[in-house]
């Protein structure tokens, strides 16, 4: 399936290569560079490129291109999903998936890649299993290793691989047994010029951090499970229990993982927690324009809206912006033409406003379209859909775990057209 993998940074250096079958020359990446050039934007590099002898399937993550070489028919999503899993694993191991992190830990990276694929077919992709095979680097461990000469490679062999529960390792032990669930909901919305909602929906995930000893069997129930319209599960969840009782029943993996992601049924009207008043105009002859944006709270269920950031991709003709913000700070990058306004918390008494002049390239025609505003925000202790966890029960183990649920609402792809 996957023949080889090349990791390429933004400046076009191939800084890592790995082959699972016979060696494919680096020159195959030339086709990729060609496509990259044609695409102008990194986002527009086609994920699948056909070359005379190979197919290149690539993903772009954290300023790195993961380019895999394929020789025969294979579902492209299979490869893409796998490459993302690789990037996730790096993230998991090194805290970030950056070029430096990979270069610093090249041996571990190589060992990981070796375990994850056999002859190009995925072998062990569960983080719990991989961590048993290859221990992630920590400062403490690297010190210990250099003194004792022991290694990062686990000498005991992973139990999960062989058990019925491949996502969990055996013999987990904690002194404090804890289970935390973060219910994170994101509002995707398109708001049109007049402020009415074109499209809005709520997407949510439940991320868990479970540190429980032994083989706990958990079941998590909701007050209002009918809200969840479309759900995708971590493999540990028993599908039939959900189908019949709407209860999430599972033996969790150890550590952090995403339990479910869901979409709230579209029948429910989505509350939009902020509104934006905007006045953006460009004048034809003076090669300048006005920019005036106010953000205010709306339907926020009595909670404060915080972490508000607005980003705007200004038209190419914009040279510079002279603005004053009543709250927070703004930056304008004249190269990428991106305006970022970090607002912070919204206090209803005094609404944040950003106002000022826009300098346009003289002589250039005035921009046709006003830029759309991308808003980010966060509301703590609120799940905007109203989803509530009812209870968490544990079976199979004797101790009493500490349980916690946290709710956060965030803006997902929240866009205001102007």
């Amino acid at each position, binding site marked *: 399936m996957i023949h080889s993998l090349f990791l390429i940074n933004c400046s076009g250096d191939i800084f890592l290569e790995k082959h699972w079958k016979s060696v494919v020359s680096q020159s195959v990446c030339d086709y990729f560079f060609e496509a990259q050039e044609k695409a102008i934007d990194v986002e527009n590099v086609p994920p*699948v490129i056909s070359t005379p002898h190979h197919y290149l399937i690539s993903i772009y993550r954290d300023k790195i291109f993961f380019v895999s070489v394929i020789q025969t028919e294979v579902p492209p*999503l299979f490869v893409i999903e796998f490459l993302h899993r690789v990037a996730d694993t790096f993230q998991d191991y090194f805290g970030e998936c950056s070029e430096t992190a990979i270069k610093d830990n*090249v041996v571990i990276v190589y060992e990981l890649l070796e375990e994850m694929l056999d002859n190009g*077919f995925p072998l062990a992709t569960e983080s719990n299993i991989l961590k048993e095979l290859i221990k992630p680097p920590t400062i403490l461990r690297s010190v210990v290793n250099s003194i004792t000469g022991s290694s990062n490679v686990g000498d005991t062999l992973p139990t999960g691989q062989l058990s*019925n529960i491949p996502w969990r390792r055996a013999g987990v032990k904690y002194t404090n047994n804890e289970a935390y669930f973060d219910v994170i909901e994101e509002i995707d919305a398109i708001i049109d010029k007049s402020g009415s909602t074109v499209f809005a929906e709520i997407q949510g995930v439940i991320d868990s951090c479970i540190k429980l000893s032994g083989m706990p069997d958990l079941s998590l129930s909701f007050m209002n499970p009918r809200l969840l319209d479309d759900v995708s599960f971590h493999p540990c969840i028993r599908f039939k229990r959900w189908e019949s009782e709407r209860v999430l029943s599972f033996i969790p993996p150890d550590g952090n993982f995403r339990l479910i992601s869901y979409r709230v049924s579209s029948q429910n009207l989505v509350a939009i927690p902020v509104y934006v008043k905007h006045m953006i105009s460009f004048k034809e002859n003076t090669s300048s324009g006005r920019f005036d944006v106010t953000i205010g709270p709306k339907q926020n269920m009595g909670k404060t809206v915080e972490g508000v950031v607005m980003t705007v991709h200004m038209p190419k003709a914009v040279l510079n912006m002279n603005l004053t913000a009543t709250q927070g700070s703004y930056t304008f990058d004249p190269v990428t033409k991106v305006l970022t306004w970090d607002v912070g918390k919204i206090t209803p008494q005094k609404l944040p406003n950003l106002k000022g002049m826009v300098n346009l390239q003289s002589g250039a025609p005035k921009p*046709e379209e006003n830029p759309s505003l991308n808003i980010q925000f966060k509301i703590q202790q609120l799940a905007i859909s109203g989803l509530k966890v009812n209870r968490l029960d544990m079976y199979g183990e004797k101790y009493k775990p500490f349980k916690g649920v946290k709710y956060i609402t965030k803006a997902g792809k929240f866009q205001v057209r102007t």
Partner: protein
Amino acid sequence: MAASPAYGEEKGGSSSLGEPEYGHDPASGGIFSSDYKRHDDLKEMLDSNKDSLKLEAMKRIVAMIARGKNASDLFPAVVKNVACKNIEVKKLVYVYLVRYAEEQQDLALLSISTFQRGLKDPNQLIRASALRVLSSIRVPIIVPIMMLAIKEAASDMSPYVRKTAAHAIPKLYSLDSDQKDQLIEVIEKLLADKTTLVAGSVVMAFEEVCPERIDLIHKNYRKLCNLLIDVEEWGQVVIINMLTRYARTQFLSPNQNESLLEENTEKAFYGSEEEDGKDAKAEAAMLAKCKPYVMDPDHRLLLRNTKPLLQSRNAAVVMAVAQLYFHLAPKAEVGVIAKALVRLLRSHSEVQYVVLQNVATMSIKRRGMFEPYLKSFYIRSTDPTQIKILKLEVLTNLANETNISTILREFQTYIRSMDKDFVAATIQAIGRCATNIGKVRDTCLNGLVQLLSNRDELVVAESVVVIKKLLQMQPAQHSEIIKHMAKLTDNIQVPMARASILWLIGEYCEHVPKIAPDVLRKMAKSFTNEEDIVKLQVINLAAKLYLTNSKQSKLLTQYVLNLAKYDQNYDIRDRARFIRQLIVPTEKSGALNKYAKKLFLAQKPAPILESSFKDRDHFQLGSLSHLLNAKAVGYQELPDWPDEAPDPSVRNVEVPEWTKCTSREKRKEKVEKPFYSDSEGESGPTESADSTPWEGRGVLPAKTLPQPPELASPHSPSEEEEEEEREKKAKKKAPQGRKGRAETSSEEASTSESSSSGSDSGSEAEAKQRKVMRAGMGGCTGIPVPPIELPISTPCSPPAARPAPRRFPCLIWMTVSGCLKYANCCGGALSSPCCLLVQLLSPAFSAVKTYELLHRMAGEGLAVEYCFSRRPFPGDPHMVAVQIQISNNTDTEVKNLRVNEPKPLSGMRIQEFPEIEHLAPGDTASVVMGIDFCDSTQAANFQLCTHTRQFYVSIQPPVGELMAPVFMSENEFKKEQGKLMGMSEITEKLMLSEKCQSDHTIVQQLTSAANVGRVPCGASNEYRFAAKTVTSGSLVLITLERREGSTAQLTINSEKMVIGTMLVKDIIQALAQ
């Protein structure tokens, strides 16, 4: 080599602080000396005694490989360390070896022996890793070694090793495709594997090596369907894709009777899972009346078992299920996939890209499916252009009369986007909407005309092109637009747009008689500066005007044609010459001249604006070929539905009658039973009549099982219940894996689930045996048996204590057949458990033969007889239980009767019976002792002591008593038999004696000769039996095939050849008597 002696010192040495320091010295020195001898420092480190140095060196080498630098000259130094004890060094050496072995084949051979040793390691993970590396070394010389290793690993005990074997198959195949036939054999064997771990990998191997051998799948189809949900996600993708292809060859199209189906699709197919059995049946019947198509239950099984996977977190799995539904499901059911696909649109942009491509194809065929999700395809300004364009494609496909106004409003915002490629695509999309939906054509056209005054030239040009296409549909009403466009020729520079305008004016010059010649005049002026396509259109326009309005344009035309005559481009010169001949009448020009007008101004059909995704669905969706719209290497064509359904019976496996559930009703009933079925314990006599007790039981952790219950022992009902209680408790305690998921539909599910959870095949079989037995018992006690036979059918004491054991089998037989008849009258569903009961019970009852241990004379009045009770010896499953019956024929009391000084041969163990303190004259005592014969027929010698005397006695077991019956399915039997070929197979011909003519007597004779269990068999003239030797647990498989007349052929497969040969002798004797 250097590594092994070094290891001893390593632990002591490396812990001192000075050592790692030393490690850096040669390295840093190496940098300076590297000019003439590269990597000398590394070589030195690799040759050193310290593992830490080796590790450091290997890390640096791997870093070199990672960067793509050549490290091949280090090969000899590295390969020496292949046997290094340090696991991390070893791993890195493997990495190196796999990378460079191909280049240095001779040296690589040095490492092979290490792996061969690893293949024999008792640790399964070491075996697996050895096989993995061995098969990854691409050295053609070792092909035979690899082949051997794969074959061996394919029948390994550990599923993990078998999985590795499956992975190794494509590796070997790519190295040497001549091995195909042998590899297919291995694949066939592994396909029959029941563990989820192996399933994905072996199907992958199947797809790479022999995708055309669809026949190999038949027998495993249902198993694969049922295992699917528990296979790891990558395996799921491969299996689903393969099953899609399989289903296309084996089932009929569910949409073949679309028109007929139309009325009752909703009812008939929608959510047929939920509806209970009766409804389904009733509806099936209804459907059958009005149309001939009925979905094959296997087809339904596939659809049902893949559906939950739409909820997978893995996009590839979701896509695989989506394409399966798209290609295989009845029209009404395809809709379920839309929601899941829309969900994927929130994922990474690469995932979006692929999913949108597929959605675009699907939305052409099944528009309704995605309509409710229209808004999810709305475009954000932050989307990458390639995503925007794909979303636009989908929106266009979804447009219909009802939603067109919203879509057009949305398009209007898109047109103002800064991304000009996207704007151009939007205009095209508007054009397509306008052609497809007549109602909005005028609105679109007006909108597009407005765009003609757009400041961006690209937008205008694109609009012109689209308008041109639209106008072709109704030119007469739009002379205004044509006029408007004619004016544009002054400003617009994009060649395609100019060409389009010119063509339009030429084509409809009758509608704009005044403007057309003027345009030509202008174009003639600028002719030499135009692009080629524009020039061609100018000539074209000139020609058309000449034909319609020669008065005004004759000279202009001449002028243009003259210019074109000397053009640089030969196409244009050609065209000019051709047109001149055609339109300008001369003496030479022939008949064509007359028809020139007809030629040029013929009615031209309007272009159809089509999606580029039309007809892409002849590629399997989700495939690389579909994405590229071209056949990729190794693409397996998705076959068309067959006209006639191939024989569905090929998928029937292990025809054991008791698992074959023909009635749909019954099947449904089981599905609905809660998994943690509590009914077992309190199952009353009536309830246990159906097979729930063993049906509901899923994962039964083998470790918690007590030793296997004796097959034939007739428990008293209370005992039975007690045992169940105990087991239930054990089950509750045991960790429950994915039980919830195991509640899959049909009965195979639970069987296979339970087998996959077993820790090894041995206890697995035991578990099963137990279950089946319980089914049998349940069936027996549950049926209201006619009163006369009832007391006999529930015997309470062990058989040996019965005075006339010989008579038993017949009685039981009668009883059971009585039950059988009764059951058949009642409804027929119960017949199977009863058959089973017979098969499993009869051997033990019929077999009790007594042997003499001590004759009355020799024992001075003490007579001792023994028999093999065929019950497992309590406390030690490796012992054969020997029932000893001692009768005191003297007239004095015998005291302290005991076993003394057992002198077992090596390995043999004897568990003595408890001392009998008194045995009154004329009394008889019965005791049990256990002997582990070590699978040999050597006699066990010991002394039998009384308070006065000692007798030397010996027990020699007939070979048939050294084994215990095993329950297995026909398939398992075949699989196991496949493993025991060659030396392990003994075949003998025999003549059946006169009395051994009926099925019943043959089975009875055979089971009395050996303690074996019957295995179901499809063929009527064949009998199969299976057993395991008591000590070592090796399988003994017996096949008896009846030939013409009274001849027969006996085949015994067993690892233990001695046992095999002796058994053949015994059985022949028993049957030929």
